[in-house]
């Protein structure tokens, strides 16, 4: 006895988009979200403006949430976790748990949209004092301050005179185990650097980087304006350590293109933390038995031309559950997975 319902796990941008599209194509969609509210990281982490179009994150996500949950074919359950999955393609049996009890539902296909979490900069070899110095923050911390239009030194509450971004924190690092590039941090740091200059015009802003990875239009829409209009200083060289001196932060590294060591004072240091698979992504992967790569991301093992099918038939993965992804990527993969899942539910043959 099969089911023609689509289960989407995770109500972030990718999950909501997949649900909205599958519903528009006529399928019944159940979206399960473990947090109390839909919207994923942009809402949970208080993003200010989206990268790369600078659109207000709250406003953009509200539209997507309304579009998805407003569709008669979509049912959204928040504060609900998937705790068991049985069956196989066309006939999954899924146990949902809330604080008050369990319920079992059927589904013909599943889309995993369980996303990422930010790298914890206190981990392992990082010597940036995130838990030691209040003025060392992460991109997510900075988003929240920018959203409140109150970018200050956390230790004093005063506007900073000098702000530094350190790229690749928790990414591209064999010692940490995250050898991959997190793809979005260069763009987000540059976007935030522009926002800092807008909100604190007297601040000098520095970005310390290994390579600036500003793909496609990010180049001319974010990187060049940051440098040319907002006079953000890009310095090739990664900070080795952060110390405290005379009440300020002292960042030590090499100014590689100038060929000299540097020790410069800063008021706020923003760590451009990368992405890691979220706890939900890890748990769901294990529960569904889908293959993951060595970093814990869900594998889409069918090559470049199928970016959403997993190793388990009938289970698709989208967005940052499969690896670092920007919003454009997440939304695109959600569309691909929605189309494939709906086709599968209707009994159509979908080949890779």
């Amino acid at each position: 006895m099969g089911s023609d319902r689509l289960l989407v796990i995770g109500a972030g941008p990718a999950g909501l988009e997949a649900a909205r599209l599958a519903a528009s194509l006529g399928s019944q969609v159940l979206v399960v979200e473990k947090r109390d509210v839909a919207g994923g990281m942009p809402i949970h982490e208080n993003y200010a403006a989206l990268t790369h179009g600078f659109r207000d994150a709250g406003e953009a996500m509200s539209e997507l949430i309304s579009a998805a949950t407003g569709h008669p074919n979509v049912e959204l359950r928040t504060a609900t976790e998937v705790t068991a999955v049985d069956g196989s393609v066309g006939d999954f049996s899924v146990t949902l748990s809330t604080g008050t009890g369990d319920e079992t539902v059927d589904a013909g296909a599943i889309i995993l949209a369980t996303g990422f979490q930010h790298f914890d900069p206190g981990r392992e070899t990082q010597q940036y004092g995130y838990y030691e110095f209040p003025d060392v923050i992460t991109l997510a911390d900075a988003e929240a301050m920018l959203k409140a239009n109150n970018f200050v030194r956390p230790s004093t509450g005063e506007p900073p005179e000098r702000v530094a971004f350190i790229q690749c924190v928790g990414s591209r690092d064999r010692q940490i185990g995250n050898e991959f590039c997190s793809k979005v941090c260069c763009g987000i740091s540059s976007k935030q650097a522009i926002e800092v200059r807008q909100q604190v015009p007297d601040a000098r802003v520095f970005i310390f980087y290994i390579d600036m990875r500003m793909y496609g239009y990010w180049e001319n829409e974010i990187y060049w304006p940051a440098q040319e209009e907002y006079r953000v200083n890009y310095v090739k060289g990664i900070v080795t350590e952060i110390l405290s001196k005379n009440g300020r932060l002292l960042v030590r590294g090499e100014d590689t293109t100038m060929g000299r060591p540097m020790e410069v004072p800063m008021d706020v240091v923003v760590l451009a933390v990368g992405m890691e698979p979220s706890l939900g992504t890890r748990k769901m992967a294990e529960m569904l038995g889908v293959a993951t790569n060595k970093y814990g991301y869900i594998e889409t093992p069918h090559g470049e031309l199928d970016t959403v099918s997993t190793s388990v038939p009938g289970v698709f993965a989208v967005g940052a559950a499969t690896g670092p992804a920007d919003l454009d990527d997440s939304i695109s993969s959600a569309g691909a997975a929605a189309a494939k899942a709906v086709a599968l539910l209707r009994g159509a043959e979908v080949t890779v």
Partner: protein
Amino acid sequence: MSRAAPATTFAQRPGATLAPRAYEDVPYEEKLALWEEVKADPRFPDYLYGCYECGICVAACPSARFYDFSPRKIAQAAAREDVELIFEQMNDDVWNCSQCFSCDRCPRQNSPGGLITILREVAVRHGLASSQEALEGYGRVVYKIMTTGTQVSPDMLQPDAFPDWGPDVKEVSDQLDLWRRALPPETLHTTSTGWEVSEKTLLELYLIWHYSDVMDMIEEVDEGLHMIILDVMEETLEEAGYEI
């Protein structure tokens, strides 16, 4: 032998940036004022957008092959508004550029050579000791250009002045007038100037140098030279009815 690069200092001033230790005795405000003057130049926005620090300009630069000189670092310091370093470059680096503008192949459409033009002009205008030193050997060339409108003249070709030009120089200089008259364009039948310059052209050049600030710049660099040039010019200008 390359000297050790100075460490970037722990700059106490809030406005200071990745600062080297050179010229510590010069007040920061003085350096800043010079930089503000560079930025205020109307050509500046066309010469600097942002710098990738990619080095395409260095690879193209003939001076970079022979001197410890990098057009990248010039653009880079300007893009970073590194006031201390810019001052250092204004003193120690900009005179190594031959102003060939090979560096104009920049993907960001910067012109490091153009920046150097402005940096040099500001350095000269403010009589930086280094600009006086750098231009010391060029007094004769400046005199020639500004009084005759042409640069190196054929009669400067003397075997004792340029021994490295080889043994033929003597023969050519002995018969200079003949050799010059063998050239097809009549305007090149000259020995004391590079080519024939009409009185009208010369008058226009003198006026341009007076009404732009070139004469003031010369005075700032070399007062004696300024006086000699002024003498020559005044006569021509007075004859033409101009009072300077």
